[in-house]
């Protein structure tokens, strides 16, 4: 790569950008440049410093050191408005949307000089048609699907004719079909000369979309390449730095039915949640059932109805043949059904409480940590210590608050807490979301080991690679419905996409 040439034509250059937070250097001397009309990938694991870097470009974070230029001029955005005025737009990973406001209002909030509401609505329709992203300006954002919500963000950016569009993990919430639509939109944009800085850790996507990639590891640029010329494996190794431990899986003949749902429906307790509709599935002993699907299609609700936090309004949930729908969470634990929700901070764990107290949180019944209402702190602490040791949780001790642990360590603690209780059925939601690769591999391995010991495991995950790797059978959640589970072997991407998109009937094996 001829660096000088890139420098000369560059739309934007970054030179020695550094940003440190207490205890961690998020970005260390990061330099690269972006050409007009280029899709440039920023590749790295969680915590590699990608988000901090783009926040500096977008004016949300001030660099401690280093310079940026835009179109040859020094670029020091003091706030996002300044960045937008200079032609930099951003689509956030966690959408910066306002649920109770309309599409038009949401878009107006992202613009610095919005036209009158009437003009704005007209322009939204116009631009959304032009880029193949249909959107009704009057609808309330909270009622939109994840894909539609992302359109709001994108159109918000497009209305300002950006020179540079930053996209932070844009496809994590999309179905494969929606990803294709997004990519077409992005290609249209690059044809018009807009540069795109594309953050992702999905390697296949980057290989198909990007012409240039900068790879970050621990806040440092470790490599650059043309991703079209590399294999996914090569990219992964650049990103991770050493070879990955791939979970081992022996073929295993599943046993009797452990848990079944028959026509389960539930109204979501959240105003903007998704209702479960006539969900039927079953999982057998020794089997891992993978449930894919885009976020916000009923994953939280499915977990809640299994954990006992919510009750199904119709249908039957049977654990080893016994109806358990009316049982509260602890009664289900007693009978061997354990769960681990997605949100670590505040749902599966209480962040301000100690690890001992967090061990007690679900372990009270099965580990006998309570005697006639009184707590056995000694036993609770030794249970916490067992989890820490068995699952290699990095922490100074059991007295530390759960919130002080890194995401990966806390997730290992949460999964470990359930696995060590020796469940008959374990249901986990997004077990490796936001977790570093090493911790993710060890969590997957522990789920496989649990199944190998004869437990039934349900893994709800957005990460299709993960499900293909560990699940015996696969299904997907789409607007609160599930398709008939099919064996993962020989399952094609098209079939998966159909199941995630709701055209399930035909796929059933």
């Amino acid at each position, binding site marked *: 790569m001829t660096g000088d040439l890139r420098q000369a034509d560059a739309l934007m250059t970054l030179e020695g950008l550094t940003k440190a937070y207490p205890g961690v250097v998020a970005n260390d001397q990061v330099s690269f440049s972006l050409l007009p009309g280029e899709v440039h990938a920023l590749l790295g694991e969680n915590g590699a410093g990608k988000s901090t870097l783009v926040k500096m470009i977008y004016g949300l974070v001030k660099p401690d050191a280093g310079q940026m230029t835009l179109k040859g001029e020094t670029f020091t955005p003091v706030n996002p408005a300044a960045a937008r005025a200079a032609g930099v737009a951003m689509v956030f990973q*966690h959408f910066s949307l*306002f649920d109770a*406001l309309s599409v038009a209002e949401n878009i107006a909030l992202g613009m610095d000089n919005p036209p009158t509401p009437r003009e704005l609505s007209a322009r939204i329709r116009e631009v959304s048609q032009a880029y193949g992203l249909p959107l009704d300006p009057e609808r309330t954002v909270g009622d939109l699907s994840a894909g539609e919500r992302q359109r709001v963000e994108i159109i918000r950016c497009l209305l300002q004719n950006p020179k540079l569009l930053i996209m932070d993990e844009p496809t994590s919430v999309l179905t494969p079909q929606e990803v294709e639509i997004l990519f077409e939109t992005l290609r249209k944009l690059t044809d018009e000369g807009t540069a795109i800085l594309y953050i992702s850790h999905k390697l296949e996507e980057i290989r198909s979309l990007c012409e240039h990639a900068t790879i970050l590891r621990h806040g440092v640029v470790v490599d650059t390449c043309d991703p079209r010329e590399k294999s996914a494996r090569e990219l992964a190794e650049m990103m991770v730095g050493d070879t990955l431990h791939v979970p081992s899986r022996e073929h295993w003949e599943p046993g009797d039915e452990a848990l079944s749902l028959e026509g389960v429906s539930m109204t979501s307790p959240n105003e903007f949640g998704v209702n479960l509709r006539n969900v039927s599935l079953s999982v057998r002993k020794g089997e891992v059932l993978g449930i894919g699907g885009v976020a916000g299609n009923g994953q939280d609700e499915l977990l809640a109805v299994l954990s006992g936090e919510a009750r199904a309004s119709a249908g039957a949930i049977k654990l080893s043949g016994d109806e358990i729908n009316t049982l509260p969470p602890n009664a289900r634990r007693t009978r061997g059904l354990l769960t681990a929700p997605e949100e670590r901070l505040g749902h599966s764990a209480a962040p301000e409480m100690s690890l001992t107290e967090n061990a007690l949180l679900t372990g009270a019944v099965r580990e006998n940590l309570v005697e006639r209402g009184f707590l056995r702190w000694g036993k609770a602490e030794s249970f916490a210590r067992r989890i820490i040791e068995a699952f290699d949780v990095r922490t100074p001790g059991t007295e530390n608050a759960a919130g002080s642990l890194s995401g990966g360590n806390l997730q290992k603690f949460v999964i470990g807490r359930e696995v060590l209780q020796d469940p008959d059925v374990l249901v986990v939601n997004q077990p490796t979301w936001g977790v570093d690769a090493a911790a993710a591999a060890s969590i997957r391995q522990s789920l496989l080991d649990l199944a190998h010991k004869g437990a039934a495991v349900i893994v709800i995950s957005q990460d299709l690679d993960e499900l293909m790797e560990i699940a015996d059978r696969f299904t997907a959640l789409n607007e609160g419905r599930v398709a008939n589970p099919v064996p993962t072997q020989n399952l094609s991407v098209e079939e998966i996409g159909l199941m995630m998109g709701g055209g399930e009937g035909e796929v059933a094996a």
Partner: protein
Amino acid sequence: MDLGQINPILLLASLMVAATPILLAAIGEAVVEKSGVLNLGVEGMMITGAVVGFAIGVNTQTPALGFVAAAVAGAALSMLFGLLVLYLKSNQVATGLGLTLFGLGLSALIGKPYEGIKAPTMAKWDIPLLSDIPVLGPILFKHDPMVYVSLIIVAATWYVLTKTRAGLILRGVGENHDAAHALGYKVNRVRLIAIAFGGACAGLGGAYISLVRVPQWVEGMTAGAGWIALAIVVFASWRPWRVLLGAYLFGGITVLQLNLQAAGVALPVEVLAMSPYVVTILVLVGISFKGNHGAPGSLGRSFHATH
């Protein structure tokens, strides 16, 4: 007992007077809550406004100056709350309660020398022509200026919240402060302004009680009006015109029970006196029965920018 002596026209006219303090406090609090902050200190700001407004009104013999001073005092007190919850991240519920307790003490201290004094009278503004309309004239157009001011504030609040960019930003901040921050809006600054507005309105409402409605200073005279204003915000689903409706409904109940007391209805005085509070509870139950829709998404949550 003689229900015949209750004059419906006077009743409706005094309804507007009875409702004005609560209306002012509630419209201010509605804006504060729309920005995502729950300020339970309305009662404390009202009573402080009542005593400061009264003191200045008496000393200058100009009620208008009293109202200005009350608004300033309410806003100043609310800034104390804003400082604590926005910048020192204190719990909003506890801080609001603290503000009420503090305001009650402060007002008692300031008000001691003013007990038993009569407030300067405030001239009524009879709107020309309109006030001559039979029935409607005396009900709607023969009031003191603050009644009209309160209605203008409601209309202006509605206009700003729904029709202007400032209002859109305020709603955005209240709906999702993390998103507003990510888009570059100054969450705490927007909220501080909203809190100051809420404080000024509560101060005005308090001063209306001590300068017009009663009109004199009595310790603890707001008697829960601030809390009722909070209930009305919930009742109104955070919408300005429904705040007006709620406040006037409540004013109606208050005036009616006072009239019934005066008419010597065969109900104990205490039962009539407690009726506004009981009705408030019933209304709250009715509202929650339908589900609290329309509450701002970030209401009551503390905001701490993580980067």
